């Protein structure tokens, strides 16, 4: 085997997913004229925004070798709480008919706090009662859904005040607020992951929980914070999605956790814990959103899109995982 061949293989292994996506973008750009328009690229960025917030939240859980199946239902709860608090006075189907629409920041705060509370409960069961994250977050997923059903009585919400929908339609420096929010969350998350003690504890717990415990890391407290923080981020994402869709219902966000976990993994967050960066989440989310848009532009049959998505996950992770496989 000569050197050249090997390095080509290495490139494929390390950047395989990205290369595939770039090829797809080029192909789609050539065959359907508007794909590479500024308009459509903004669209893709907008679509990425809330997905990124979710992925960054879930990434924290995965890095501790956990996961969070409750993400989707938390998004729904966040979106619905925001929806009930931010309806126009004159909307005929108003949820709280006589309540003035709340200040949007206050509403956001409430959404994030409520979600964080549920997240903290999940974290408590994981940390103190040794319930595996998969099971614990699954249980919370059911509970949050039930609560949201009871709260909204399964009524779809709409008729939002313009300051709320304005979060999606408004722009600053030509860029949608949604994108700014996602950027801000990414920067804060980067800071937490890399610059704070909490971030390092997170990696330690994922890398080797016994070692972390023995080294004096407050494992339990850290876990609770991680799940609470993640839940707050799902709440934020629900808030963003509601603004963008101009409405919300209990189904909002359903199943998003799967895509977020897949996105993180594709980007390089290891489900066995201890490894993963903010950039991993960004790459993974970009892959998914670009793929979805490209498939639609190419006119691929919706049913076949599921298959394409599944195949991409297989291929992407097969290529990627080999980076970490010991040279055997």
């Amino acid at each position, binding site marked *: 085997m000569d050197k050249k061949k090997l390095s080509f293989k290495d490139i494929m292994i390390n950047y395989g997913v990205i290369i595939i996506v770039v090829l797809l973008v080029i192909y789609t750009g050539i065959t359907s004229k508007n794909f590479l328009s500024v308009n459509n690229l903004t669209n893709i960025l907008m679509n990425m925004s809330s997905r990124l917030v979710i992925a960054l939240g879930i990434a924290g859980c995965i890095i501790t070798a956990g996961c969070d199946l409750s993400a989707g239902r938390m998004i729904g709860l966040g979106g619905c709480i925001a929806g009930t608090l931010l309806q126009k006075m004159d909307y005929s189907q108003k949820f709280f008919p006589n309540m003035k629409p709340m200040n949007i920041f206050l509403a956001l705060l409430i959404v994030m706090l409520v979600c964080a509370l549920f997240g903290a409960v999940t974290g408590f069961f994981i940390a103190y009662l040794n319930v595996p994250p998969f099971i614990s977050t699954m249980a919370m997923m059911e509970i949050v859904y039930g609560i949201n059903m009871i709260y909204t009585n399964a009524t779809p919400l709409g008729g939002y005040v313009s300051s709320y929908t304005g979060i999606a339609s408004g722009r600053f420096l030509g860029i949608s607020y949604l994108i700014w929010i996602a950027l801000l969350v990414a920067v804060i998350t980067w800071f937490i992951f890399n610059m704070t003690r909490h971030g*390092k504890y997170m990696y*330690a717990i994922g890398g080797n929980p016994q*070692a*972390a415990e023995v080294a004096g890391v407050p494992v339990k407290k850290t876990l609770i914070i991680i799940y609470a923080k993640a839940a707050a981020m799902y709440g934020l994402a629900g808030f963003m999605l509601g603004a963008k869709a101009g409405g919300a219902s209990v189904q909002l966000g359903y199943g998003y956790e799967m895509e977020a976990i897949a996105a993180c993994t594709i980007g390089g967050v290891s489900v066995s814990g201890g490894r993963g960066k903010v950039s991993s989440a960004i790459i993974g989310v970009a892959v998914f959103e670009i793929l979805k848009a490209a498939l639609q532009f190419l006119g691929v049959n919706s049913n076949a899109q599921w298959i394409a998505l599944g195949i991409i996950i297989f291929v992407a992770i097969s290529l990627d995982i080999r980076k970490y496989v010991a040279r*055997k």
Partner: protein
Amino acid sequence: MAEFKLEMKGICKSFPGVKALDNVQLSLRPGTVHALMGENGAGKSTLMKCLFGIYKMDAGEIYLDGQKVSINNPDEAMKYGIAMVHQELQPIPARSVAENLYEGRFPLKSFGPIKVVDHKKMYEDTAYWLKEVKMDFDPKAMLGDLSIGQMQSVEIAKAVSHQAKVVIFDEPTSSLSDNEVEALFRIMNDLRDKGVAMVYISHKMDEIKRIADDITIMRDGTYVGTWSADELSTDDIIAKMVGRTLTNVYPERKNTPGEVIMEVKHMTSISDKSFQDVSFNLRKGEILGFGGLVGAQRTEVLEGVFGIRALKSGEVYVKGKKVTIKHPADAMKAGIGLITEDRRGNGIFGCLSIKDNVGVSTYNKYLKAGIVLDHKKIGEIVDSSIKKLRIKTPNMKEHIANLSGGNQQKVIIARWLANDPDILIMDEPTRGIDVGAKHEIYEIMNDLAAQGKSIIMVSSEMAELLGMSDRVYVMCDGKMRGEIKDKKDMTQAKVMSYATQF
């Protein structure tokens, strides 16, 4: 000032089915190294884990400087000035050396109103402590990229960096090279001069004689006694640990090797950084030693033979026939067995019973009608191995994770004995094993050889290598550097001269 820096009194600790500690005591004088001795499973690690707050003891008291204290978790232990180098490595492989060193106590600085980790200070301090322990790798290096020995050195640096008043070393040298051991002893001498009280656990008698001031001996979870190091000879220590006297550690060989049974030719790893062009042969009834410094790639070569590591080229002949080995199952078909060096990583099945741990490699042999497992037969074999190897356990249903390290090793030996291979590769077979058990393992090796089985033994312990082998190959840096055919040529000097031919 109290006479003792630290006292543990009347310590009791039970696990389901095992009384691991029964009224044990330990008293550390400041500025001394206190050796804690005992067979595998005597309860040494358990006692130290109780001290460090990892286990909650059932009864007993701990006094620090004469004050009674209660220690509920490692964090509290560290706050009391106690540090520990753990027997089972505790690394976080995907993080840097510096982070591993400062985990749980990162230096912080203010970033506006927020406290952030002071990376600069962390890296500088890490570099300082690494230099203290005579190590000079990059604090930013990924811990997982280091060798096991280097990781152990990081653990030592970490314990030292706590500037603790009490430092516990639980078998710190089991994977250190001689140079690294020397460095450790220098550090311990420094600490002694600074008045630090140390607990030192090791199964290597020569180390005990060199470093210990006091010796406490335990047997079966009970306290035997405490002596000054000069009061006891090595034989005394062994007798008190084992409860009987052992005359010759390396038992007499009963046979002479016969014809060549296996030949390995020009074996080269798929990785450029790994072993190149290694050839050797093995005779029937032979105990073949593989010497070299830690990191010489002996393990990789033998794992290559066994089908775990990918090869670029090379041939293996067993009984004159060429065999293709791509998977351990192929190796087993060719009559080869392997006891790996990394017991916890790729040896034991922690959550399975002793029976399942022994049985796993032999199921092919004990099938009824080609499908149903013969549980009765398997049970008998496991039972007899437990007796033969004197594995300390309530019964064969016990989870292997609950056994002491040494007993786990015996279970793995039992696995391969049950598989009955013609060729058994044993990688560091006595690492972490007490003298009594070591002797037993050596006897088993000799018996196997006498039955016409052939053994390849990788050992970093010079005495063992010279004491047990019929013939020795020495590797250095992934290459075969020499063969010592004659028993009388087998000297430490000769082995070392080959082992350092980089």
